[in-house]
């Protein structure tokens, strides 16, 4: 590591972090074999349900936000234009 440069600035370390993150993701799913879940609802008992649900729900929310943004986004000087409201 060159002096003055944080270890988080090194591309190699970022790659390592990504690999570690993916490994942890895989582990949390695989661990379902070892841990007995107590599903309250049928759907909860599906293998890897929470992982899939978390991902899909977030992807959906991002897409919805993006779509809504097409209609509702304005430049951040929008309210400043009438001059009374800097």
């Amino acid at each position: 590591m060159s002096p003055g440069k944080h270890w988080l600035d090194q591309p190699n370390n970022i790659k390592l972090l990504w690999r570690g993150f993916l490994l942890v993701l895989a582990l949390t799913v695989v661990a379902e074999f070892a841990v007995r879940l107590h599903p309250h609802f049928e759907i909860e008992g599906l293998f890897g349900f929470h992982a899939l649900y978390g991902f899909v729900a977030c992807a959906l929310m991002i897409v919805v936000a993006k779509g809504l943004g097409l209609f509702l986004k304005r430049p951040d000087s929008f309210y400043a234009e009438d001059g009374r409201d800097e």
Partner: protein
Amino acid sequence: MSDTLILHPALILIAGALLLPLLRGTARNVAVLLAPTLALIALWLMPEGRVWEVSWLDYQLAPLAVDKLSRLFSTIFALMAFAGGLYALRQESRLEIPAAFLYAGAAIGVALAGDLVTVFVFWEVMAVGSTLVLWSANTKTAWSASLRYAMVHLAGGVILFAGVTGHLLATGDAAFTRMQPDSVAHWLILIGFLINAGAPPISAWLPDAYPEASWSGTVFLSAFTTKTAVYVLIRGFPGTEILIWIGLFMVFYGIVYALLENDMRRILTYSIVNQVGFMIAGIGIGTEMALNGASAHAFTHIIYKALLLMSAGAVLAATGRRKCSELGGLFHSMPLTTICGIIGALAISSFPLTSGFISKSMISQAAADGHLQTVWLLLAAASAGVFLHAGIKFPWFVFFQKDSGLRPADPPASMRWAMILFAFLCISLGVWPEPLYALLPYAVDYVPYTAAHVLTQLQLLLFSGLAFFVMLDYLKRTPTITLDVDWSWRKAGPAAARGVAAIWRRLSKALSEFLSAKVTSISDLVARHRKPGGLLLRSWPTGNMALWVMVMLLAYLVFYYVGNGNGNA
């Protein structure tokens, strides 16, 4: 009686607020930390029950009534006043801390009120205190935001007042107990409460006003108004089903708007609406588990949201910037702020071993216990969304992402210690939840740490983290704002008013031109007839006169018969 009056925790804090402007230097700093501490001690020395009762008109009021629920909320309000005061010690505005203590004292006053009249009085003091906190930012934007803020809260106060008055007239009882939304008065009370909770349709006052306060002001603002609303809803309207759906709407509204937002503190204020949504949904479910969950979540939320806003405030104070698109890479020079911000972010996301995990999960558990599958699924999706919009987005764009080249140092000691205190509480409540559980209004029959719960929560959160980084291109910050309902009173309302005024001006001009022409012609006519030989100055024949008198007498006769006929019928 008089000694209990002096020891009212709310009045201690408010007295502190009034004394502070007289003090300077160390004495003032000590007083800032002492006032909330004394309030906390007074609170815990208080026995349960209606400690102080007075008669007012025909009503029995209890300005000081203590039970577990009110003690829980008063405790966190006092704690918040302490940490906020510590954080704001170096605030240059001399108005801000006194205003914040007035605000916090009033919040405690609401929590300890045993009757609706006292609730209303402190409710209004809160509106005044919070508006003063906004003013002390002393900027033009804060000033105009504070006017909009005050307008919404004064309107909310009027609605609440109407409801309380109606309730008093109908029942003759001022006591603040459980109500049903079964009359106009109770609906008005419910609406008044919900306005302060940031519920739709006028939630926009919150992200409009809060981010305009000073670097320390927003920390205070985040804590009291919405959580007092949660408190009064828990006491007044538990199990009101519509609250479930209002809460779920708030949860997703907060996420979507926070995802679109560029201002770091506005992201966090949208996330207040989101978090309060969880609590409101819990109140709507209304079981003991759900109400415990809502209370616990309010307690932990105040701590981690304040922590998040403290770290954002430290960034704002050091850089003067608040837009994500202008920040980034601050972890290089602000390690402590980064770590505290991340702890707050993990806690709001309910990561295991943080305070959010042991509080929010009780609300989901209550939904599962009640077999409310749709509600449960939506709450789970929302939990994932919290990690997305606040848990990763805030620390990522402020402290990491691209390097903005900014190298500000960590903040001064008073701010650092306030952050460390709340970061410590976020972790310790997560690791050791029993003390908090013991304070909850109902006995807790819930174990947060089971292998299944930890595992499913980790799956949910980590995979939403994956979604964030996979879809990062969609989340790129743009220098934009997103229209909210405040557009209706900032743009549409004024534009409509201007339009109506313009139409009115044109109409009245046309009308006055038309009328003045008419008047001129009539006055010409009159003038003509007042000349010799005109209608008014010539002599009239007597027969004419007699004819008109006869017509009038006939008309009189007709009216007499018509009137009499009706009277007899």
